[in-house]
C-alpha cells in the first residue's frame, strides 16, 4: 500500500492543559465547535471547506450514539465522511490516518479531527457520585458478561497503573532494568516542557533523584513516571494537497501509517514485551519508504515511562532489550541528538484524556511548520508519531513530512 502524499495536517488547536477543578466546564459539542473554529483559523481555511469529520464516540458527554450527525448539525457541516474512533490513547493517531485515507480516496477535501476533553456541566441526573461511580474501575468494563468484570476486578486487577507496572516487571526479568534510565526519560521530557509555556509543568525543573524519590505506585513505577490527568481538548484539520496550498502554514503530509491490536489486557498478549507498535511502525515506515534513522524527531505516546521505552525499541529506534542503555546514551531534549516529545510529552505537558495523544500529533505539526518557539528544532522535516491505547493494547504510528 502506498500513499500519494495528498493529505496533510494544515491546522491545529489545543486547550492549554488545566486542572479539572479549575478548568471551564463546557458541553462537548461546544468544545467541538470552539476547537474547530480555532483549528480552522490556524489553517486559514473556511468552514465550508470541511466535508469530513472524525470524532470520539466513547466519553462524548451529550450522546453515546449518533455523535457525528449531532456534531454535523450543531456545527452546520455537510459531510461526505463521518467516523467515530474508539482506540483510547491511540485515537488521535488513528483519526489522522483515517482522515488522510478518506482524502486520498477522494471522499472529501478537508477533515476535522476533534477530541473534546474538558468536563461538561453536570446534567440534572448527574452528580459527583455518578462521576465517582463511572471512574471506579478505570478503563475496565464492569458490564455483566465482560470477562474483565469477572476475572480481573475481584482480584484488584483494574485501571492502568498495575498493567503497565507488570509489563515493566516482565521486561526487567527478561532484559534487566535501570531505574535511572527510566527516570531520564521523564527528566529529558521535563527539560522540553521548560521551553513550552503551555505545558502543565512549565517552570518546574525535575531531577532523576526526584523521580526516583517520588512515591512508588506499583513496583517499579514511581508516580513521576505516570501522566497527570488534566482537562483539555484538541483538534486538527487534515486537508487535500489542493487546499493545503492555500493554508497559512507549512503542512505536515501523512506519508505513512500503521495500526495494530489483538488484546485489551496485556495478560493475553503473545509476548508482553513485544508491543503492537512493532508491526504498526514497521508498516508506517515501509509505506513512507523511510527508516527510523531518517526522522528528525519522534513524538512518542508516553502515558508511562515504560511506554516510551518499549516504543523506542519496538518501533526500531533502539535495539530490542537495549533501550535503557540507548536512553542513557542519547539526549532526548530539543537540543539533543534524538529530539523526543519536544513539547514535554504528556508526562510533563499533561494528559487530557484521549486528546492527550493529540498533543503529540500537534507537536509534530508545530515543529514541521516551524512555530515551536524556543524549542524549535533547526531542521524538522520528518517526524514519527505514536499513539497507545489501553494497556499497550492498541497502538498506531504516523510518519509526517513537511510539504
Amino acid at each position, binding site marked *: 500500500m502506498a500513499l500519494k502524499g495528498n493529505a496533510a495536517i494544515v491546522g491545529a488547536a489545543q486547550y492549554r492543559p488545566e486542572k479539572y477543578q479549575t478548568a471551564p466546564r463546557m458541553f462537548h459539542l461546544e468544545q467541538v465547535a470552539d476547537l474547530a473554529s480555532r483549528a480552522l483559523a490556524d489553517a486559514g481555511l473556511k468552514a465550508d471547506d470541511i466535508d469530513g469529520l472524525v470524532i470520539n464516540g466513547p466519553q462524548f458527554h451529550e450522546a453515546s450514539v449518533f455523535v457525528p450527525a449531532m456534531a454535523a448539525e450543531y456545527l452546520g457541516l455537510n459531510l461526505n465522511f463521518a467516523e467515530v474512533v474508539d482506540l483510547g490513547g491511540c485515537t488521535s493517531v488513528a483519526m489522522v490516518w483515517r482522515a488522510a485515507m478518506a482524502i486520498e480516496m477522494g471522499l472529501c477535501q478537508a477533515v476535522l479531527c476533534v477530541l473534546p476533553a474538558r468536563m461538561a456541566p453536570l446534567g440534572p441526573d448527574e452528580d459527583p457520585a455518578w462521576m465517582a461511580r463511572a471512574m471506579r474501575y478505570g478503563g475496565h468494563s464492569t458490564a455483566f458478561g465482560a470477562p474483565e468484570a469477572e476475572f480481573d476486578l*475481584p482480584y484488584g*486487577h483494574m485501571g492502568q497503573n498495575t498493567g503497565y507496572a507488570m509489563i515493566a516487571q516482565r521486561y526487567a*526479568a527478561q532484559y534487566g532494568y535501570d531505574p535511572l534510565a527510566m527516570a531520564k526519560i521523564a527528566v529529558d521530557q521535563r527539560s522540553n516542557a521548560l521551553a513550552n509555556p503551555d505545558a502543565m509543568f512549565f517552570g518546574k525543573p525535575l531531577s532523576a533523584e526526584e523521580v526516583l524519590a517520588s512515591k512508588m505506585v*506499583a513496583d517499579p513505577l514511581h508516580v513521576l513516571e505516570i501522566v497527570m490527568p488534566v482537562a483539555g481538548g484538541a483538534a486538527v484539520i487534515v486537508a487535500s494537497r489542493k487546499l493545503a496550498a492555500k493554508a497559512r502554514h507549512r503542512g505536515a503530509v501523512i506519508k505513512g501509517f500503521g495500526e495494530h491490536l489483538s488484546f485489551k489486557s496485556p495478560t493475553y498478549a503473545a509476548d*508482553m514485551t513485544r508491543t503492537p507498535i512493532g508491526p504498526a511502525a514497521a508498516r508506517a515506515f515501509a509505506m513512507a519508504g523511510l527508516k527510523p534513522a531518517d526522522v528528525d524527531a519522534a513524538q512518542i505516546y508516553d502515558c508511562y515511562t515504560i511506554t516510551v521505552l518499549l516504543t523506542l525499541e519496538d518501533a526500531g529506534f533502539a535495539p530490542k532489550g537495549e533501550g535503557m542503555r540507548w536512553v542513557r546514551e542519547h539526549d532526548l531534549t530539543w537540543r539533543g541528538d534524538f529530539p523526543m516529545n519536544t513539547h514535554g510529552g504528556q508526562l510533563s505537558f499533561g494528559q487530557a484524556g484521549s486528546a492527550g495523544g493529540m498533543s503529540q500529533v500537534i507537536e509534530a505539526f508545530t515543529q514541521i511548520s516551524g512555530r515551536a518557539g524556543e524549542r524549535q528544532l533547526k531542521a524538522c522535516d520528518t517526524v514519527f508519531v505514536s499513539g497507545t491505547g489501553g494497556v499497550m493494547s492498541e497502538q498506531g504510528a504516523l510518519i509526517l513530512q513537511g510539504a
Partner: protein
Amino acid sequence: MSTNKPMPAPTDISAPFWDGLTRGSLTIPRCNSCGHWIFYPRRHCDKCWSHDLAWHEVSGEGSLYTYTLTRIPTLPDFADEMPQALAVVELDEGVRINTTLVGLAEDEIRVGMRLKPVFDRVREDGGTLLRFTGIDKTIAPKRQAPAAEQPASAAPAVTLVKVPVSDEAAMQALVSESFTAWSNEVVVDQALIDEFARLSGDDYWIHTDPDKARKQGPFGGTIAHGALVQVLQSRLKIPLGFEVIGFTNMVNYGSDRLRFPSPVPAGARIQARARVKRVERLKSGTQLTLEVHTHVVGAERPSVINDLVILYM
C-alpha cells in the same frame, strides 16, 4: 475484608469454572479440534474458532509470568490486602490468568518461579477465588473471616511517661511533628453501621442499604457514617506513651477540626494514630490539642482527621 470488594458474577459460559473452584478444582476449556487450551472461558476456540470444546481439570501448577506490588490500592476496598501482589500466572497448559499471590514475602517473588493454586473461599456461600502461592509453600492464605466485635489485634503495650500538668516544659515537650505507632484494629461491619444508624437516626441508604449502595452509590457498596468512625476512636487504643497527671478535672472540649477525607467501606478494618499538635496555657487550665488520624488499614489517606481538644483543669 471489606464487603464492598467486587465479586465474580458467573455467566452461563463461565459458571463451570467458578463451580470448579468451590470444589477445590481448577477446570478450563480445551479445544477438541486443535488441542488449544482456552482462558478465560468462552464458547469457541480463540485459535481455530471451533465450537467443539470440553472442560478439563488441570493441576493448576504453573510459573509466574509477571507481577507488581501495589503501593496504592487499586480500589480503597483492597487496602486491607496491601501491598497486593497482583500477578499473571502462566499455567503449564500455556494459558495465562490474572490473579494475586499469597503466602509469599516480597523478596521471595521472582518472575519465572513455580506456583500452585490456592482455592480461597471468600464468601460464605462458597464463592471462591483462585490465588497462587509458591510450589513448596504449605501455609494457607491468611484471610480470616472478619471478627465483628473483637479487635483484630491487641493494643500495643507501651510504657507510660507520667507528665504533671503543672510542668509546663514537660507538657510543651509532648508537642510533636511525628505521629505515634498505630493503635489496635477494629472491624467496621454492616451490623455496627446499622446499629449506629438506629441510634443516630441517620439511616441514609448509602450507609444502610447494601444492594442500593452497590448499584447506585459511588463506592460499590455501603460506607460507615463519618461520625461513627469518629466515635470509634474510643475503641482504638493509641499508644501515646504519656499520661497527664495532677489535674482535678479533664474535659473533652470538642474539636478544632473534623474532616472525613475518605470513606470507610462496610467490612473494613480501621486503626488510628495521633500526635500532640499544641499545648496552651489558658486561664481556665491547660489545653492540649491531639490530632487523631483514623485510617482504613493500609490506606494512605485518613478517613477521619480530628483535632481533639482536651482541657485539664
